């Protein structure tokens, strides 16, 4: 194991899969000559050439569809959205063509494509550039959605996504690109299955369910809560769909109290679905109502103070945990 950044981990995943399979190629805005808007594709053009590392014009709908068409005839495209906020311009391609093709064709056309890029609110980017799209995409049958929070998960999930025979969205955490973590060396083929949550911290009093940018938030809160004699277990979903319900129920059977902290919006957000499943399936294990900490239900303001007020934060999370613990 060695310590690398989340950005480097993604870069390694791309390079390893490009090396491994000649049908894999990467395309998107600024991925080649510019080396990636967030430098995730740094050095890939030099190494793999312009046939496989392809700069596109600003045409998200067009190049997303182009990737899907290439996947229909058996290539394995990786389509980078400069941010998933821009994927909304390609929404029709992703949700109609990538998602529905297998069913509409009676099983003839699977779409082995990976859509990836930063997702979720970053820092003062305003309403158009701050979308957390996981709740939108997870709503569609036929899409897999993962949300890595650590360099290790980023690498392992992206590699798995590229090899998957279905459309997979790898929603990277924009604020975590420079974060560091321990990752297996490149010669170990690190694959992390989709649909497997991970206990990022063990605890016994309360379960905090989180993913992507709320994982470091949850871990910080858990450390602080320990000082107040509340032992929090932190479950990182890692994949939104498929959802690892067993991991959630196993933890709740131990703690009996749950707070879901998510980076998306409250109405029909990821936490709403997780909460529904918890109350439906293990209601008797609960000692308190399930609480959610999410964004406020407003378009994201630019102003820094207001933006902070919209986002989940440590204070909101600690307050929610104390509430479910009646502390």
């Amino acid at each position, binding site marked *: 194991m060695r310590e690398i950044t989340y950005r480097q981990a993604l870069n390694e995943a791309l390079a390893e899969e490009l090396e491994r*399979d000649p*049908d894999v*190629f990467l395309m998107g805005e600024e991925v080649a000559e510019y080396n990636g808007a967030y430098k995730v594709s740094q050095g890939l053009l030099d190494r793999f050439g312009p*046939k496989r590392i392809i700069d*596109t*014009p600003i*045409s998200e*709908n*067009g*190049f*997303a*569809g*182009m*990737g*899907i*068409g*290439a*996947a*229909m*005839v*058996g*290539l*394995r*495209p990786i389509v980078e959205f400069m941010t998933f906020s821009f994927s909304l311009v390609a929404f*029709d*391609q992703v949700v*109609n*063509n990538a998602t529905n*093709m*297998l*069913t*509409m*064709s*009676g*099983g*003839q*056309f*699977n779409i*082995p494509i990976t859509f990836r890029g930063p997702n979720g609110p970053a820092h003062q980017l305003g309403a158009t550039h701050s979308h957390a799209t996981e709740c939108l995409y997870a709503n569609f*049958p*036929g899409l*897999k959605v993962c949300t890595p929070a650590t360099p290790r998960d980023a690498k392992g999930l992206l590699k*798995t996504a590229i*090899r*998957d*025979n*279905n459309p997979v969205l790898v929603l990277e955490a924009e604020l975590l690109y420079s974060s560091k973590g321990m990752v297996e060396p490149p010669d170990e083929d690190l694959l992390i299955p989709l649909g497997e949550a991970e206990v990022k911290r063990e605890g016994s009093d309360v379960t905090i369910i989180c993913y992507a940018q709320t994982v470091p938030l949850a871990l910080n809160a858990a450390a602080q809560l320990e000082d107040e004699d509340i032992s929090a277990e932190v479950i990182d979903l890692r994949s939104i769909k498929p959802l690892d319900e067993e991991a959630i129920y196993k933890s709740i059977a131990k703690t009996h109290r749950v707070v879901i902290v998510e980076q998306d919006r409250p109405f029909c957000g990821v936490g709403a679905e997780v909460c529904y499943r918890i109350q439906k399936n293990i209601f008797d294990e609960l000692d308190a109502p399930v609480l959610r900490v999410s964004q406020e239900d407003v378009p994201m303001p630019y102003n820094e103070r207001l933006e902070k007020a919209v986002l989940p934060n440590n204070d909101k999370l600690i307050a929610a945990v104390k509430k479910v613990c009646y502390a």
Partner: protein
Amino acid sequence: MQLAERDEVEMLSLMLLVRRFEERASQQYQAQKIGGFCHLYIGQEAVVVGAAAATRHDDYFITAYRDHAHALVKGTSPDACMAELFGKETGCSGGLGGSMHYFDRKNHMYGGHAIVGAHVPLAVGMAFASKYRGEDRVTLCFFGDGAINQGAFHEALNLAALFKLPVLFICENNLFAMGTSVKRSTSLKQIVDRAEGYDIPADIVDGMNFREVRDKISEIVGSIRKEPHAAFIEARTYRYRGHSMSDPASYRTKDELEKYRMDDPIIRLRAQLTREGKLTNEQFDKMDREAKDAAMASVKFAEQSPEPPLEKLYDYTFVDGASA
């Protein structure tokens, strides 16, 4: 390239098959054997049959929702086409796609796409894959005049031209996007000029004339095979029926319809072949009877086919496995 006369007769019989199949489908729709929407191609047959005559079986075809003819000419059986309309398991999309979503991978029919313009980027991706693999295969992307004002269409044309991809865009201009005439939807005097904005070579063909369509496409496809590039043709054609089965087409005059009926692609090719001594009336009648019989038989096949089993409801959301 001129095809042998035998092939022209075959192509005429293919046009007849398409025509008789759709007439039968129309009747079955009215008898409420077919659900959803059903858009008929009747009148436009020379376009896709001309394209089929000018291309190889392994060239990719992809089109919009008026797609029955495209599957039939690629080799999908009338049985599988009719069964799809009936929503049966033996349909070309297993009964899960319906009229607007015909697919047949083994015959290189890549759909049947029902969001206007949204399949044009897919065609560009398919052409990209051919070039990526060094194949000389050409993608033929069909769409209506209604698609040319969609963003996806414009983005796709730019990408195809920019990356020099082996794709032929075929605008089947039947003058109406549903009930809106081209004059009321499009700022251009002629649709073919759309291509000029992307430096894509473009041409107009008489879409009611099989030979003209075939010869023009043949020439373009030959050029694309030599050196991959995008190309565009506007095929001027006409649909005799409404936009869909529920459309009485009151937005156009009887005179206009009659004018085009006089120029019917089947009658025209038949007359050409007869005049040239390549087809007798008896031969034509026999072919027509066979086409009608095949259409009738497809209804029987569809009626007798099973529904897709309920237990398979969840089988088509994801495929298992990963690349080896």
